[in-house]
């Protein structure tokens, strides 16, 4: 077997390499790319092989420091360590690295969440003296991407100081949506329902996901009586209006009824949908005429919601309207109208309207089937 032609080797000098690229361009390009790929592969192998070790060492270090900070705070709270000593030690740790600062903040968050009364006041003094507060406030005012801003927000709301509140409020205008929302959630923890006024004041926009999270928070709060819902509904801020309608539904706020007819003409279909939902849940029977009037011009989704609400709030006056939809045999809408008729006038009322029409009888069977309730 004949030997393979050998690879031309360049001279190891700038001029030699330049000459190699002109004389053996193909070899030069291919070899360079192979070298680059090999370097990348080696880097990736090393990174995979040593990653776990580095990660474990970092985790150990973190656990150790966390334990030390916890011990120090416990000693301080049980009067075995003086305030000055504790503050000096924490300042020392803080100064050493940014990672230490994060761990210290995490421990403070946990302690603030656990204790109350005079112990909390003592801890707060230490929080100030150790310089942690300053760092948190400074952290809140940073405008660039910082993965720890969420932690600062958490600590700021738990420490509950005037500067922290101010810092949180300023974050409502942060360029990052997630941070704006986290700040809003923290303000709800501090100011409870009053924090909703900031949505109006700062014109914060809330999407459906954020609304869900915020609502979960609000639902756990006591004393819901003083929420100025009518003011919020008239605010013009669509996010706030949508959320207020949801709150009205969950908190049984019948006083919003007067505002609802106006909202039926709102441009946003999702907001109008909320109006139908509220009326259905709160059985606001007085709105059914307005609903019937609105029905023909509504979006298909809103028509469905409206009919569902009619099943709970509709009265005898709505029966001709519902019967017309039922007999129009548009399957989904007919089914919903049938459910509403069934709820208002019972099985007989529904059967009378179905007559002998097979499709309508099938709808009746669906409505009457106990397995489908």
């Amino acid at each position, binding site marked *: 077997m004949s030997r*393979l*032609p*050998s*690879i031309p080797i360049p001279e190891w000098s700038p001029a030699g390499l330049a000459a190699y690229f002109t004389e053996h361009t*193909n*070899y030069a390009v*291919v*070899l360079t*790319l*192979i070298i680059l*790929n*090999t370097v*990348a*592969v080696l880097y*990736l*192998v090393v*990174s*995979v*092989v040593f*990653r*776990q070790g580095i990660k474990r060492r970092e985790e150990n270090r973190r656990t150790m420091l966390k334990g030390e900070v916890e011990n120090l705070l416990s000693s301080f709270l049980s009067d075995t360590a003086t305030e000055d000593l504790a503050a000096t030690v924490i300042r020392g740790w803080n100064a050493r690295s940014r990672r230490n600062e994060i761990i210290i903040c995490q421990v403070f968050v946990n302690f603030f969440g656990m204790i109350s009364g005079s112990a909390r006041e003592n801890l707060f003094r230490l929080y100030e003296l150790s310089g942690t507060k300053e760092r948190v406030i400074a952290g809140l005012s940073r405008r660039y*991407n910082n*993965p720890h801003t*969420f932690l600062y927000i958490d600590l700021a709301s738990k420490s509950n100081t005037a500067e922290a509140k101010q810092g949180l409020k300023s974050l409502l205008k942060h360029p990052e949506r*997630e941070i704006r929302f*986290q700040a809003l959630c923290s303000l709800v923890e501090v100011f409870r329902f009053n924090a909703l006024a900031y949505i109006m004041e700062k014109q914060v926009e809330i*999407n*459906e*996901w*954020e*609304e*869900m*999270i915020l*609502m*979960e928070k609000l639902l756990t709060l006591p004393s819901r009586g003083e929420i100025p819902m009518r003011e919020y509904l008239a605010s013009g801020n669509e996010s706030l209006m949508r959320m207020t309608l*949801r709150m009205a539904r969950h908190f049984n706020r019948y006083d919003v009824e007067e505002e609802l007819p106006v909202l039926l003409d709102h441009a946003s279909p999702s907001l109008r949908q909320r109006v139908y939902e509220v009326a259905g849940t709160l059985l606001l029977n007085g709105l059914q005429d307005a609903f019937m009037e609105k029905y023909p011009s509504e979006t298909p*989704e809103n028509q469905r919601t409206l009919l569902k609400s009619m099943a709970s709030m509709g009265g005898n006056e709505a029966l001709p309207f519902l019967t017309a939809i039922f007999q129009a045999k548009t*399957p*989904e809408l007919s*089914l919903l109208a049938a459910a509403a008729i069934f709820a208002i006038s019972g099985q007989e009322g529904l059967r009378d309207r179905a007559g002998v029409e097979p499709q309508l009888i*099938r*709808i009746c*069977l*669906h409505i*009457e*089937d106990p*397995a*489908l309730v």
Partner: protein
Amino acid sequence: MRFINEHLIPFLNTGIFIYALAISFSYIILAYISSRFLQKYIYKTRYVRFDQHVSSPLAPRVSIIAPAYNEGLTVIENVKSLISLRYVNFEVIIINDGSKDDTMEKLINSFGLVATHFYYEEKIPCKPIRGVYRSTNPVYNKLWVVDKENGGKADALNSGMNLASGAYAACIDVDCVLEPDAILRMVKPMMEAGKKRVIASGGVVRIANQCEIKNGRLIKVNLPDNRLALFQVVEYLRVFMLGRLAWARIDGLLLISGAFGLFDREIVIEAGGYDHGTVGEDMELVVRMRRLMCEQKKPYAVTFIPDPLCWTEAPESMKVLGRQRNRWTRGTIETLRTHKRMFLNPRYKLLGMLSFPYWFFFEWLAPLIETCGLLYSVFLVVTGHINVTFFLLLVLLVYSFALAISFYAIQTDLKTYDMYKNKSDQFRMMGIAMLEPFTFHMFNVLNALKGNRDYAMGKKSWGQMTRTGFSKPSKS
């Protein structure tokens, strides 16, 4: 001869060189975009407490649609796993697609099902439904079972779409194992949509062979012992972590895996549902939905979640895997041909100008060009147009590049989700990635060629996909 030497060979050399350069460059770009996207996603979701929000009754209603055909062996466990997902506002619709085994009997007996007078609108045409069943046991009140005549997976999914009551429909393979909070994670981007309506959302699919699964829940992640499944672990990592993420980031994603995807039901219905006439119904639906939105000039998005949400069983035999890859190739060709109008059509913006050409040149044509390129290189070596050393260097270049991409996918996974924690598993993955270009990749190319041949011959069948059930956990 002179024409060959002076014109044809230089022309082919330049063509192959440009093609190789373009495909390699696209991989690098996609890998870069993916890693940036992943970094941002992890940063943004770091403080989202999915475990707390998962029980929120305020989340939108989701209908999980799972077709079952001859799944009698595992269907009960699989349905129980779906019912016990951690999400409040959902329903599970199991479609018995005319199974010839005891799937339906088992479902009726195990869940105490009774036939109902369910009335529905056939918004998407599908094969006749024999009955809609519900359980008499309130524990299973989220379960609906539809018994219908056999019409294939697309038809079964369409009947599920007709019956579903949720605004969103999650279409899944019944034997997939979902992470408990999978639905919430998938719904999140839809709820976050601003001016753009999110019409579909996909998730990362991982290989579950030999993972520890108990009561339909993934308990421990293991690497499969079977070499073929192991190749697929690395392949899926590369495809999902480096490919689809990037396409989602630039809003050019054309495919959401049929194993698990969440769709805006209204748009699916408007687009006409799944196409019965293709074996690549998952890709075809996404393309058609996107096309519809483009044509109606409505702002929309298709998103992708990098979290590992769905675990599926990978084929462990060459025969079954071959059939699967053959089908995927035919599905791709069918979709690209059905929607050929979109190809380089500026009306479809990025979709027509970038995604579609990419799929055409680098997904459909890649195996064909690769084979031709290989044969051509051998021809050049034999006829003395290039020397053997240079040819071997070219092979080494391609190999080192493939290795770098696979290792990058492995490293990205370790850095982010760290699913395979054992050092030995990591070495095994790297080892298999080293073997892949000469073995598994060649096998895939061969099956893609067969897929092209079968498409040209008008073959439309799915090919039987034998499931063995999740293997026992690896001893290692």
